[in-house]
């Protein structure tokens, strides 16, 4: 059972090999803005999950639409998002694992990754994928979420998520009604559990990194350039792989805010749709119940009448056959919207913290002495 094995030794952290980080980045940036998905292999040691290798899932080819299952009818984005569960990919995954096993790569599946933009990843698809992985095998799987657009702003954005046991339990039952939510006390905060991620290098890689010339050069005497053009063409300066990354000092504010507002609006819209659904349900439920009550009263009166006439009373629970109560819409989507908005809010918080620091820095620099 899922819950049992999770309780045994819960996963506490995720460790990713540098190789996997690079592969995910490469795959994600190549397919951007379509989300990229792939499979993670590795092993779990006690409470640590080690991701040691990855391979991408094939981007589903639209031409295959006639032969494949329903996912292939959708647009590119949802197509890619559904890839981890697509039937064709299960075979691909199995064969790939078999192949890498032959060259001594850890062949235990430990999850999947997806790339996203601006933290916009909480969706039914994401939940279904992770549920698919967390339900199968021995359950120790994570979803790595790589944010392409935030990474281009300077700092690597790679997060590991798991579904919480309480959410898994609820999802297994497939019931997200008001009643069940009250009982399980499930909140949107409880859907995903984030795990700390750390990057790990192999010994060989460490050796290799030490060998690459570092920037800025150590404080030894350097030869002076003879001319300006030599300075600008010096290969040591222009193409150093480990030069300090100053992207995070970039001061671009408006695109980020614009995108965030767009996404927030989308979320609000979704939320409203869900609300409308819920209201519609409530109204039709009230209507049906009123009808039932009417019927019951009528039946009671009839029975009183029949009792006076010494006839056998008619059954009073026949209404269950006559009336059908409307199905309550699933509240899952509104939970997810809540979670998604929380994600945006946190993201904006982080952004405003960074950006206001930078802004004051710029202001202090351009207006010396006027800093309030």
């Amino acid at each position, binding site marked *: 059972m899922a819950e049992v094995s999770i309780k045994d030794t819960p996963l506490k952290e995720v*460790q990713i090999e*540098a190789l996997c980080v*690079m592969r995910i*980045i*490469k795959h994600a940036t190549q397919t951007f803005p379509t989300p990229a998905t792939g499979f993670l292999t590795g092993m779990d040691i006690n409470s640590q999950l080690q991701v040691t*290798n990855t*391979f991408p899932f*094939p981007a589903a080819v639209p031409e295959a639409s006639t032969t494949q299952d329903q996912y292939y009818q959708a647009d590119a984005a949802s197509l890619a998002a559904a890839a981890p569960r697509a039937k064709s990919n299960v075979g*691909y995954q199995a*064969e790939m694992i078999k192949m890498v096993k032959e*060259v001594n790569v850890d062949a235990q599946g430990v999850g999947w990754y997806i790339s996203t933009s601006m933290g916009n990843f909480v969706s039914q698809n994401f939940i279904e994928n992770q549920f698919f992985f967390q339900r199968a095998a021995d359950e120790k799987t994570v979803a790595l979420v790589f944010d*392409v657009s935030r*990474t281009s702003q*300077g700092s*690597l954005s790679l997060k590991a998520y798991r579904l919480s046991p309480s959410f898994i339990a609820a999802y297994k039952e497939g019931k997200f009604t*008001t009643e069940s939510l*009250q009982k399980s006390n499930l909140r949107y905060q409880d859907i995903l559990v984030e795990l700390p*991620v*750390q990057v*790990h*290098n192999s010994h*060989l*890689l460490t050796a290799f*990194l*030490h060998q*690459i010339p570092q920037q*800025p050069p150590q404080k030894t005497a350097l030869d002076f*350039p003879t001319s300006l053009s030599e*300075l600008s063409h010096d290969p040591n300066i222009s*193409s150093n*792989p*480990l030069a*300090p990354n*100053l*992207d*995070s*000092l970039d001061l671009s*504010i408006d695109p980020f*805010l614009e995108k965030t*507002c767009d996404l*927030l609006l989308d979320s609000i819209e979704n939320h409203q749709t869900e*609300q409308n659904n*819920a209201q519609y349900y*409530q*109204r039709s*439920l*009230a209507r049906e119940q009123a009808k039932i009550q009417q019927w019951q009263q009528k039946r009671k009166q009839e029975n009183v009448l029949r009792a006076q006439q010494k006839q056998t009373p008619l059954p009073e629970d026949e209404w269950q056959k006559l009336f059908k109560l409307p199905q309550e819409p699933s509240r899952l989507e509104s939970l997810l919207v*809540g979670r998604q*908005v929380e994600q945006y*809010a946190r993201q904006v918080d982080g*952004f*405003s*913290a*960074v*950006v*206001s*620091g930078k*802004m004051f820095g*710029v202001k202090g620099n351009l*207006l010396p002495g006027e800093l309030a």
Partner: protein
Amino acid sequence: MGDNNFLHLARPLAPAAVSAAAPSTAPVSVTVQPQALFSILDHASRRPAEQERVIGTLLGTRSEDGTEVEIRNCYAVPHTETAEQVEVDMDYQKRMLELHLKAAPKEVLIGWYATSSELNTFSALIQNFYSQQGEGTFPHPAVHLTVSTIAGQDVKADTYISAPIGVTAERAADSCLFIPVPHEIKYGEAEKSGLELIAGARDREDRSQLLQTDIETLERAIEQVLEMLERVSNYVSNVLDEEAEPSSALGQFLMNTLSLAPKVDPESIEKDFNNHIQDVLLVSYLANTIRTQIDLSNRLATAALTMGSGDGNNANAEQKGERKDRQQNQRQGAGQGGRRGEQ
């Protein structure tokens, strides 16, 4: 003179001749992406204990004229090597290539790698296998990348292409001339932050590093800039004090850099600053308000029933929540307008 007296000579193609003469198929520059190198290093550390070197296939892209090759990906291919013979699992190579092409159709077979810088007869054999017609890279020569992984020595990468050599057909099959070609390691923009993090773990004992938050990255970047500025200003003051040797090129460069500082009047800076900082704070405030509102509305939707009231109330509560949400938004809008008006 007899008509049929000819001496046949097979001349190896020298690199100069190849690139100078008619359009050539030889790559003149090879670019290696870091993930391919990382993958090779990973493979090297996973090799069977008794095996000296392991090999694998390189995938990537080739420019139209075949002169530029970019190695983007690679995968390991099992092989066994003894003093007398070498065995490469060709079936594995073929199937793996198919699988890779499925996921990344744009990447083509480029060549192969080995985790030792030695070039021997077997290298030639494998090289000829990879550059053969049909399944190989023909008409382009296969690129051979060697990455030496001997303990105690530097990790050294070399790239080669090959030219056929040998007088007879049998000899030609297991010999070829490896021609070194220049290569460079290049990374993309997005990989920069990944590499930076990986490099950050370089000096640590446990070889691992936790992912950093934005603000930590910013802090580090600022520290680095400060350090560099200090170095430069140290140098400049040393030159002024006639303690360090001046360099006109450096001076020119510094002048050029300084002239990049924008000239803007304080008022417009003040205005832009206020505008932007208010935008940022506003969006952050809005996002959090929306989050609270949605949370509230969700809670009201599920909580009303526990209070024992009827379904009608529940719907009302929901409606109320929603309306509040909208009102709040309107208030925000008004606030924004007001604040903009102030300036």
